[in-house]
């Protein structure tokens, strides 16, 4: 990383922490800290809902999944709009009118404090484990990129988040999520342009899509009833529906978001906004993974992506022999990919049918 990169990262982190602390003046009461005084607009809540689902794992893991497995994963989200409608009809007005601080507080009112303690404990354990993975996965990548110790990287990521969350409460979290979403959208657009610019001059966006499609990477709808298939339209509509109902209806990390909305209407609108944007956004994230795959049809990927591990292996004679064979195989693959991209539609169809 160059000095300018470091300045941008440091300035952004400093701004996020400063803005979070600035919001503490609105968070001095319990209602202000946990519910933002029920004052947030629907678009901020909606973006926060989306940002809460969109962790670093989504950006790294989902693009990686598209690279290796194509766009099948998008079907997982087909049940989301239906789940959001059911939640808008049931849970959103229910929680809002119950005037609770958390999803589990209602259970105390309905049953007793033991049920509240049990559900809260289960949530904190599962969320703690989840956040552990969410922070450690990008830390592994960042520690390699920056050459930092892994533990130090985890602290660097976790500390800034902890500071603004502890001081600013849900209001700071929500407004930081809004900023993060804009940064993420911008970052995705930049990634897309950078990948496209890495294609050979005579290979267009359409050629790249045709190449990906012919290699089975653009399968967005699978109507088969194969139970061994993880992602089909049916698993998305049925399994995805119930998973999303549980996540958005019972998980405090999500319920807390729409409890901060100004009214039931604003809470509903925020969830529907998320439902409306999630599939196109996920499509775009997966498309980047597919384009990384296409990119590496024309550009040789390293045998080992981890530069530290690569440096350890490259001196061995066995590795060098493998490297030579790999380079020859990739050159042939590149030639075939360029030839396929430059041929007519009829040739491509005949080729795919013959294959």
């Amino acid at each position, binding site marked *: 990383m160059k000095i300018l990169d470091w300045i941008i990262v440091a300035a952004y982190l400093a701004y996020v922490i400063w803005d979070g602390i600035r919001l503490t003046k609105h968070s001095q009461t319990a209602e202000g800290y946990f519910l933002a005084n029920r004052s947030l607009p629907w678009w901020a809540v909606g973006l926060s809902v989306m940002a809460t689902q969109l962790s670093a794992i989504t950006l790294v893991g989902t693009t990686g999944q598209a690279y290796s497995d194509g766009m099948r994963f998008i079907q997982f989200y087909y049940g989301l709009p239906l789940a959001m409608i059911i939640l808008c009809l049931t849970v959103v007005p229910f929680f809002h009118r119950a005037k609770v601080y958390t999803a589990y507080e209602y259970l105390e009112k309905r049953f007793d404090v033991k049920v509240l303690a049990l559900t809260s404990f289960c949530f904190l354990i599962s969320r703690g484990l989840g956040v552990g993975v969410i922070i450690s996965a990008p830390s592994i990548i960042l520690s390699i990129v920056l050459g930092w110790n892994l533990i130090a990287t985890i602290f660097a990521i976790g500390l800034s988040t902890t500071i603004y969350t502890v001081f600013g409460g849900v209001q700071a979290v929500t407004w930081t999520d809004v900023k993060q979403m804009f940064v993420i959208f911008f970052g995705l657009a930049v990634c897309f342009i950078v990948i496209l610019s890495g294609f050979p001059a005579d290979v267009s966006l359409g050629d790249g899509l045709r190449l990906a499609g012919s290699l089975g990477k653009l399968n*967005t709808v699978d109507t088969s009833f194969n139970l061994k298939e993880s992602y089909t339209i049916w698993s998305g509509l049925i399994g995805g529906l119930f998973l999303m109902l549980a996540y958005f209806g019972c998980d405090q990390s999500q319920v807390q978001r729409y409890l901060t909305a100004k009214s039931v209407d604003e809470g509903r609108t925020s969830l529907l906004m998320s439902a409306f944007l999630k599939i196109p956004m996920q499509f775009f994230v997966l498309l980047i993974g597919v384009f990384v795959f296409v990119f590496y049809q024309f550009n040789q990927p390293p045998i080992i992506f981890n530069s530290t591990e690569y440096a350890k292996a490259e001196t061995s004679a066995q590795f060098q022999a493998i490297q030579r064979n790999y380079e020859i195989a990739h050159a042939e693959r590149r030639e075939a990919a360029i030839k396929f991209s430059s041929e007519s539609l009829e040739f491509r169809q005949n080729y*795919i049918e013959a294959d």
Partner: protein
Amino acid sequence: VHKTEEKITTEKPNAFWYRVYLAIIVATILVITALWLFSAYFSK
């Protein structure tokens, strides 16, 4: 109390929301169809 009553009375009627839900369902069907057409077109 007055503020709470005011909030409840300014909520949009159910009929409005039913139309919104219908629009979301139609939009979802259109999006899935568009994705299916996209896959079919570029997989030829």
